[in-house]
C-alpha cells in the first residue's frame, strides 16, 4: 500500500513537469530542454521563500509566480525571435538556458544540498490500510489531483482553454479571427514554467534540493510525454502514472533495474503505438 502511495506521489510530480512540457510543445512547437532547470530553480526559490517567510505555504505561491514571470521573459527574449527558424535553434536556445540557470543557481545558493521541511500538520505519518504512510505524500497526491482537475477544467471549459485548443492546431486561422497568438504563446510558456515552479516546491520536502535534480527528473518526464503522445494533457496523466508506478514498484522489487524498467515501458508503448497512447490526429492542447 505504501508503495502505491509513493508511486502516486512520484506520478504527480512527474505530471506537473510533463504537463508543462507537453503544453509548451503543443502551442509553441518547442521541446523545452530547460524545463528541468526551471523545476530546479523553482525548488531553490521555494527554499528561499521558505527561509524568508518561515513557512511552506508562501513558498508554494511565490516560487510558481516567480517562475511564471521568468517564463514570460524567457519566451519573449529567447524563443520568440527564433520561431521563424528551424527547430535546432530553439533546442539550442533552451539548452543554453540550462547553462545560464544552473550558473545563476550555483552563484546564488552554492553547491550545498538544501531541503524543505513539510508544513506543520503534514509531517510524520498516518496508519492507513495497515501501513505507515507519510502525510506529506498524501498531500502531494491530493494537490496533484487538484492541479490535474484545474488544468482539465481550464482547457475544456474556459475561454483561454478554447483559444489554446484552437491556436495550437491552427495559429494562422486563430490570428485571422483576432487572437493574439504571440500572447497565447507567452502565456502558455509562463503556465508551463509556473507548473515547473509548483513541481520544484512540491519536490522540496521529498527530495534533496541540488543542482542536478532537474536533469534527474527531466529524462523521466520526456519518457512520460512520449508515452502519452506529444502535446496531450490526458496522455501526460497516464504516462506519469505508468512511469511513477514503475519507479515505485521497481524500487521495491529490483532497485538496480529501475532505469532499465522505465525504458522498457517506453519501448513497449512505442512498439504498440508509435504515436503515443493518446495522440489523436489533431492535438488537444
Amino acid at each position, binding site marked *: 500500500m505504501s508503495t502505491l502511495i509513493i508511486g502516486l506521489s512520484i506520478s504527480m510530480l512527474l505530471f506537473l513537469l510533463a504537463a508543462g512540457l507537453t503544453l509548451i510543445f503543443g502551442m509553441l512547437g518547442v521541446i523545452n530542454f530547460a524545463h528541468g532547470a526551471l523545476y530546479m530553480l523553482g525548488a531553490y526559490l521555494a527554499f528561499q521563500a521558505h527561509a524568508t517567510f518561515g513557512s511552506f505555504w508562501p513558498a508554494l505561491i511565490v516560487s510558481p509566480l516567480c517562475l511564471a514571470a521568468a517564463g514570460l521573459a524567457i519566451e519573449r527574449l529567447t524563443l520568440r525571435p527564433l520561431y521563424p527558424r528551424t527547430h535546432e535553434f530553439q533546442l539550442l536556445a533552451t539548452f543554453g538556458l540550462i547553462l545560464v540557470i544552473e550558473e545563476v543557481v550555483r552563484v546564488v545558493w552554492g553547491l550545498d544540498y538544501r531541503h524543505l521541511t513539510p508544513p506543520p500538520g503534514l509531517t510524520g505519518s498516518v496508519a492507513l490500510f495497515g501501513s505507515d504512510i507519510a502525510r506529506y505524500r498524501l498531500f502531494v497526491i491530493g494537490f496533484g489531483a487538484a492541479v490535474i482537475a484545474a488544468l482539465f477544467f481550464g482547457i475544456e471549459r474556459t475561454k483561454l482553454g478554447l483559444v489554446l485548443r484552437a491556436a495550437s492546431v491552427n495559429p494562422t486561422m486563430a490570428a*485571422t*479571427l483576432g487572437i493574439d497568438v504571440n500572447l497565447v504563446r507567452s502565456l502558455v510558456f509562463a503556465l508551463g514554467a509556473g507548473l515547473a515552479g509548483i513541481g520544484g516546491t512540491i519536490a522540496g520536502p521529498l527530495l534533496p534540493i541540488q543542482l542536478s535534480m532537474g536533469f534527474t527528473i527531466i529524462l523521466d518526464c520526456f519518457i512520460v510525454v512520449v508515452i502519452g503522445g506529444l502535446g496531450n494533457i490526458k496522455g501526460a496523466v497516464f504516462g506519469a502514472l505508468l512511469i511513477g508506478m514503475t519507479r515505485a514498484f521497481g524500487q521495491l522489487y529490483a532497485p538496480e533495474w529501475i532505469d532499465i524498467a522505465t525504458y522498457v515501458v517506453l519501448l513497449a508503448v512505442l512498439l504498440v503505438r508509435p504515436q503515443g497512447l493518446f495522440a489523436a490526429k489533431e492535438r488537444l492542447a
Partner: protein
Amino acid sequence: MLALSQADVFYGRAQALHALDLGVAPAEIVAMVGRNGAGKSTALKALAGLLSLGAGRRLLDGRDITGLAPHRTSRAGVALVPEDRQIFGNLSAEENLDLAAVSHRPGPWTKARVFALFPRLAERARARGLTLSGGEQQMLAIGRALMTNPRYLLLDEPTEGLAPVVVAQMCNAIAAIARDGVGILLVEQNAKVPRLLARRFLVVDGGRITWEGTDAADIDERFNPMNAVH
C-alpha cells in the same frame, strides 16, 4: 472602404500580385473572378494581413493599415473566410463560433443570429468540426467570420463544391449580410454565382486586374481567354 493600392506581393522571388488596385465599400458586393492561380486568394490574404506587401498600401476607411498584423486587422473589422474553410476540427461548431467572439467587442452578430441565418448550424452546434459536411463547414466558416462583427468580409470561393440547394442558401445569406451594411469581396473561379450577387466585377489574371466593370454579361469570355477562342 477596404482597399489595396498599387500592391505588390511576392512568394519568395516569384511575384504574385503586380500593382494591384482594388477596393470594396460598405454594403457593396464586389466579385473578383479569375482562373486558378490568378492571384485572387493572394489578394484576399494580403487584405487580411496574412501576406505582407512588397510595395503599395493597404487601406481601411482612409487609414493606412499596410503593416497591421492579422489579429489586429481582424479586430479592426476585416474578416476572411479562407478557401479551405479552416474549421477547427477538434472544436465543436459552437466552440468555433465562440472562439471568433473572444477577441472582439460585442456587436450586432451573436450566436443566435448566426443560427437564425444558418438553421442547420443550430442543429449541429455540439458536433465536432471534423464531422461536419462541406456545406455545414462553409456555413460555419461564414458564421464564424460574422461573429467577429466585421465591416468587411472576404469570401474565398464560398460555393466551391457545394450542392445547388446549398449554393442557393449561401447566396441568400451573402446578400442578406451585405444588406446589413457589410462590404463583401467575393472571389470565384467562374461568374455564375457572382452574377447573381455582385454589382461590380473585377477580372484578375497573372496577378493583375485585366478588366473591371458592371456588366457581367460577357464576363466569362473576359476572364477566360480559352472561352474567347471558341
